[in-house]
């Protein structure tokens, strides 16, 4: 929580409606996302109960497990879900594009589009992860055979769940998370976890304040919980008798009634997000997602093993370092794309905005062997400057150009510029900021950072268990009880 967001929450209380905390959209939104709303049975270890799933608002498909404690029926549910999800995934394995990799030393093919799953909340992401875990090791032959689609579903769900941990990925997105990144409500983040209440604040029905709409949204009779947990009263008064009755149509109706309001909310969320213009770096991140997707399609096609149960030591450390780098990059990208996000850094002194009051675009630095073009500009800052000489800053308006702070006196900051001006000793017109131009400079950088060196798999130090064995699922995995 930043001070700007906190202030936006306060303003939302006063205005009676959520306030924007982003000027552009920071998540990618597919033109045909797969909306997935899972419900699980209370008290069971992630036993699926029902789901509403589909990639268009008009045609949700209802999946129901008539006896949630019945193992065969659970795998039946998994097989049906697999059919829907895997064919959705497959529908993106069409057109590819050729992209340069390894700094231009090689090329590879990448699908031009990729699947995107939208779930209501963090619990929905947890369901995807655990349902993936409970299905990916199943065998399709022998004693505990399941439908061949089941383990494949498990691997895809696991793939999506792992992507969801990757900062900036849009392959598996929770609606509360996506909306909460763009709007601040007049309630707490605890209450924002309720999708109906969150949307109540963002788009209250006519004649209602956000607070009133959110209050109404908390009534589980009007707005059943968005899952995976169900409302206990529903369980006791509707679900239990419906299961008992043995009538599939009664059960289906009961579950459809629980799920449909959330279905409607999910698509309302989609429209709200679509109405925001996409940030300019969203496409770049989606390209990473497409790359990851392409890679996994190839891995599965080559007959790779399902994802291991737990990351081995080196893999876990590598993954953590990768996630940290991705987080830093994602933070920088959002700030570069969005002045409102950048403003948070101005508030904390990691950025300053101002106007150019002096510019010497032809200044040369002759101190080295070769003379180089190093223009100086003076920026009069609107913000308190908390950065000192020697610090390197970049302006999102000119990401290819670096500025090194030469001196700071009062609100005047002198910067020495390099990069983004061609190779000559005179700067092409427009490549050096001119007097009067308004700019923001920040220490955030989106430049490539070399990954930390980790020992390769075979060189895992003995302190971390020595080289790990490749994770090969065994009989026990295939037979794992599910009760």
């Amino acid at each position, binding site marked *: 929580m930043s001070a700007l967001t906190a202030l936006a929450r306060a303003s939302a209380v006063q205005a009676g409606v959520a306030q924007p905390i982003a000027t552009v959209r920071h998540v990618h939104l597919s033109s045909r996302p797969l909306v997935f709303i899972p419900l699980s049975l209370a008290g069971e270890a992630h036993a699926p109960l029902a789901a509403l799933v589909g990639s268009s608002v008009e045609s949700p498909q209802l999946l129901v497990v008539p006896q949630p404690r019945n193992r065969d029926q659970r795998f039946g549910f998994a097989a049906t879900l697999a059919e829907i999800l895997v064919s959705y995934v497959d529908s993106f394995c069409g057109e590819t594009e050729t992209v340069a990799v390894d700094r231009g030393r090689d090329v590879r093919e990448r699908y031009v589009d990729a699947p995107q799953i939208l779930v209501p909340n963090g619990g929905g992401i947890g369901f995807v992860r655990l349902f993936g875990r409970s299905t990916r090791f199943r065998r399709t032959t022998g004693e505990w055979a399941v439908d061949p689609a089941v383990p494949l579903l498990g691997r895809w769900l696991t793939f999506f769940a792992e992507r969801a941990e990757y900062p900036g990925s849009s392959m598996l997105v929770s609606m509360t998370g996506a909306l909460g990144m763009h709007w601040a409500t007049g309630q*707490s983040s605890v209450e924002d976890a309720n999708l109906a209440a969150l949307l109540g604040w963002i788009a209250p029905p006519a004649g209602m304040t956000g607070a009133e709409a959110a209050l109404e949204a908390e009534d589980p009779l009007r707005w059943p919980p968005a899952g995976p947990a169900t409302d206990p009263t529903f*369980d*006791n008064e509707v679900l239990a008798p419906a299961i008992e009755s043995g009538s599939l149509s009664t059960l289906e109706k009961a579950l459809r009634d629980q799920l449909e309001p959330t279905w409607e909310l999910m698509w309302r969320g989609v429209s709200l997000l679509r109405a925001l213009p996409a940030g300019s770096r969203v496409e770049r991140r989606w390209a990473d997602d497409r790359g990851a997707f392409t890679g996994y399609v190839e891995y599965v096609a080559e007959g790779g093993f399902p994802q291991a149960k737990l990351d081995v030591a080196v893999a876990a450390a590598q993954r953590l370092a990768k996630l940290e780098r991705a987080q830093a990059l994602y933070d920088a990208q959002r700030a570069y794309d969005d002045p409102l996000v950048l403003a948070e850094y101005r*508030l904390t002194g990691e950025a300053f905005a101002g106007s150019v009051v002096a510019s010497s675009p032809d200044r040369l630095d002759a101190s080295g062997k070769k003379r180089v073009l190093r223009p100086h500009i003076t920026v009069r800052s609107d913000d308190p400057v908390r950065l000192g000489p020697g610090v390197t800053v970049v302006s999102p308006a000119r990401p290819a150009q670096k500025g090194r702070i030469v001196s700071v006196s009062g609100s005047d900051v002198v910067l020495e510029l390099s990069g983004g001006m061609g190779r000559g000793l005179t700067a092409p017109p427009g490549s050096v900021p001119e007097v009067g131009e308004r700019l923001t400079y920040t220490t955030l950088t989106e430049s490539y950072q070399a990954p930390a060196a980790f020992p390769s798999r075979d060189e895992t130090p003995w302190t971390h268990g020595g080289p790990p064995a490749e994770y090969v699922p065994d009989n026990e995995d295939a037979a*794992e009880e599910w009760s």
Partner: protein
Amino acid sequence: MTSLDRLRGDVQPKNHNARTIAALTANPGCSRRAVMDAAGIDKSRLASYIGFPARFGQSQFAITRGNAFEAQLKANGCAELLRLLREALKLPIEEASYDDLESLEQMDARAARSRQLLTRAASGEEGAGTLFDHPLLRLEVGGRWVYLEPDLVALRTGGKFYVVEIKSFAVIDGQADGTKVSAAATQSAVYVLALRRLLAEAGHDPLLVSHDVVLVCPENFSNRPVATLVDVRKKLSVLERQLSRMARIDAIVESLSPDLTFDLAPDSSGVPQRPASELVDGLGQVDARYSPECLANCELAFFCRHEARGTTASLGKSVREELGGVSSVELALSLASGSASPEPDQEEAAAMLRYAAKLRAEIVS
């Protein structure tokens, strides 16, 4: 009649259990909750009556599953549990004897019998048992004795007691839901404390009761149990602090109006006759400290949230902090817009708020 009896009115005090005692520690700074709980007032009933019913329902599926799991573990004289504990605690096999304390009907008799058996075990008597199923313990909470019933107490060689707590949430690949583990640990800490006090009263070393409790949960997606040791030292100290605070509740109660009561004044058929507005006024006389975490922990949360509208605390602790600790939303916004002038101790917060407001205004038109 004590002041607490008067506050509660003419009804039996609401009984605590480990879960409600654990919940006491969720918001230790709240006098309202401390007073209500010390007086044994039925907060849930009160909240419903004044129009802010709590929503802490439990699904019958969850209850059924929990009971079935516990029954499975305890079948055949705790056979499955015993096997698990032998692994987790290295319980020597030959000493495993089992006392089912649940079957005794009378509360006091059960408590006495439990005390007798547990103290005998503590003195290292021959054949004193190693497993105690549902012993009944007592703990003093705000001047009243509360009965508590741990799932199981196990005794290991060397006379160490372990509280065993059975939960039906799953541990998957060695990981479980953090909130659930934490709640289970706090509840177990209540049992550890009660057991320690029991032993201390009988002249034994209270530290014979381990601060590690054994949490038994289903593993992965199966019914197979797995035991995990959880260190509850931190929970214990929070709990002890809160209980001693409850013991000093008198000071808070003394400061309340001498005719304040939350009596619902039921008529002869038990229907409350007390005007709700009087109860609301009464609640207003006892200081609360609402935060959004109350929603998951206290039956009065919807009422307190309603009352706390317009406070920065109701938006969450971090929002309040980011707004420089200013307590009301209106004041924070007035300071931000410059329409209110800050008190000397608000200067810094006000400057930050004005700056933040200026930035937002510059960008969001």
